[in-house]
């Protein structure tokens, strides 16, 4: 099946020995670079969104307007509730510091009604209605809200960007395929005489296609590896930013499977270019006798 990759030196001489002179390796390199960066961004976004979603999936907040005075009782009620863990109250001093950004020194006034804010985890299956009723017995205005509901718009945006990256990768792949078609047609024009002679002495379309396919596959492989190498350097330079994003969400921005996908990308691009070249050459040859 891959015999065409290992053609003899004589076969290789048929199309001349010049290599990497056309624009195709450069076009493929640029496409490979762009695809790698965009794919890495998309995969990092996907990883970040997944980590963030996982981290807040069971996290809730209890908010009580003007409930700072009831903080102790509320904490005790939550800790006593079945299924509730990791109960952390935001200290009143921190709430006042936060309010200071909007209210200035007035935030430190004893007359200011400071809300109570308590974060907690609820294990799956926990009856949050019962928990809410228990805290409302202490502070009727108490409301429990899920973190995931607040972060949902952000996660939706991240997922949209992730799909946008995926779409861009597809578009760049299509652009690379178009460049290969043009390169294949150019190569056919350049070698039209050789093709006519070969056809005349009984060469089949497949024999001729293998010659072009191999040449284009090698050009595409070199171009896509060079582009991917440049992309990898850029990604490494951005690695500190990526690890910062990872720290924000409590996990690695690029998982091991994502790294495998990125490593495979130049080879997938090469395979795509080779297949497209094969189809383009076969289609062009079919127009002759």
């Amino acid at each position, binding site marked *: 099946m891959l015999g065409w990759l290992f053609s*003899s*030196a*004589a*076969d290789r*001489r*048929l199309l*001349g020995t010049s290599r990497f002179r056309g624009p195709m390796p450069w076009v493929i390199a640029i496409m490979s670079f762009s695809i790698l960066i965009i794919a890495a961004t998309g995969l990092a976004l996907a990883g970040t969104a997944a980590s963030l979603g996982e981290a807040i999936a069971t996290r809730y907040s209890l908010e009580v307007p003007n409930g700072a005075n009831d903080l102790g009782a509320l904490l005790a009620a939550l800790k006593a509730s079945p299924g509730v863990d990791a109960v952390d109250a935001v200290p009143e001093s921190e709430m006042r510091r936060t309010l200071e950004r909007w209210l200035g020194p007035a935030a430190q006034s004893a007359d200011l009604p400071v809300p109570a804010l308590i974060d907690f985890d609820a294990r799956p299956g926990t009856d949050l209605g019962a928990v809410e009723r228990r805290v409302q017995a202490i502070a009727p205005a108490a409301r429990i809200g899920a973190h995931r509901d607040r972060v949902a718009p952000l996660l939706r945006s991240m997922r949209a960007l992730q799909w946008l990256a995926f779409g861009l990768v597809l578009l760049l792949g299509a652009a690379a395929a178009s460049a290969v078609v043009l390169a294949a047609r150019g190569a056919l024009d350049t070698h039209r*005489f*050789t093709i*006519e*002679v*070969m*056809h*005349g*002495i*009984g*060469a*089949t*379309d497949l*024999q001729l296609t293998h010659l072009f396919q191999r040449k284009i596959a090698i050009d595409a492989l070199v171009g896509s590896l060079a582009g991917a190498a440049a992309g990898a350097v850029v990604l490494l330079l951005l690695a500190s930013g990526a690890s910062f994003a990872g720290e924000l969400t409590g996990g690695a921005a690029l998982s091991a499977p994502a790294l495998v996908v990125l490593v495979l990308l130049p080879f997938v691009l090469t395979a795509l270019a080779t297949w497209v070249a094969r189809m383009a050459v076969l289609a062009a040859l*079919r127009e002759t*006798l």
Partner: protein
Amino acid sequence: MNGALQGARLATERGREGKLPAIAEFDSVGLRYGTGGEVLRDLDFRLTNGGFYFLTGPSGAGKTSLLKLLYLAQRPTRGRIRLFGEELSEAPRESLPPFRRRIGVVFQDFRLIHHLSAFDNIALPLRVAGATDEEVEGPVREMLAWVGLADRASARPPTLSGGEQQRVAIARAVINRPELLVADEPTGNVDAEMARRLLHLFTALNRLGTTVVVATHDVGLISATPSAEMIRLENGGVVDPTGLLRNPPPRHS
């Protein structure tokens, strides 16, 4: 197809039709390019296996077009062509390469691949047929010696003289011992001595069983081969007043 099977088929044909076996049969063949008028019309003739034919006629009579039909570079726009006993006028193009490998063609402009050496040009038909480098080496060296170019094996066509290029083209055409050899004005670019040597090559091949069709204006070439038959083309039609092309007489070897 192996020789024995082919021999049996030819014998069957001879018995069935009572004629010499034909390597090519043209039946009401016409050819036009695009929307132009017919350059070949109503061609009805047969070439017997092992025959030697000169194709003559004034310039523009359609000799090159007829040769293109013979070596399967062109399809007729009407009529039927049988080659090697097979109807090929409308055969799928995928089925043509094996038949082309049974035909050697010497082009007027040689049609050598300039970036390949003389050796590689001559080796092409063998490589297309699937021969390995080792299998190619001996026959190509032998062929180079046969055409007097043993010391020019690595030379590229642009560095060869017209006569040398012609000999490389002939060596390429005959290296796989074709059943049909077609030559278009083979002496058009060579001197008289080379023309004589070329004719010697063709007759030698013909004696080995190859059917030879040579399109030429060269009267000297024709007169030097009295045993050859003539196909004269005029205005796209074959002039065959005696009907010998349709019903050739028995050959005496």
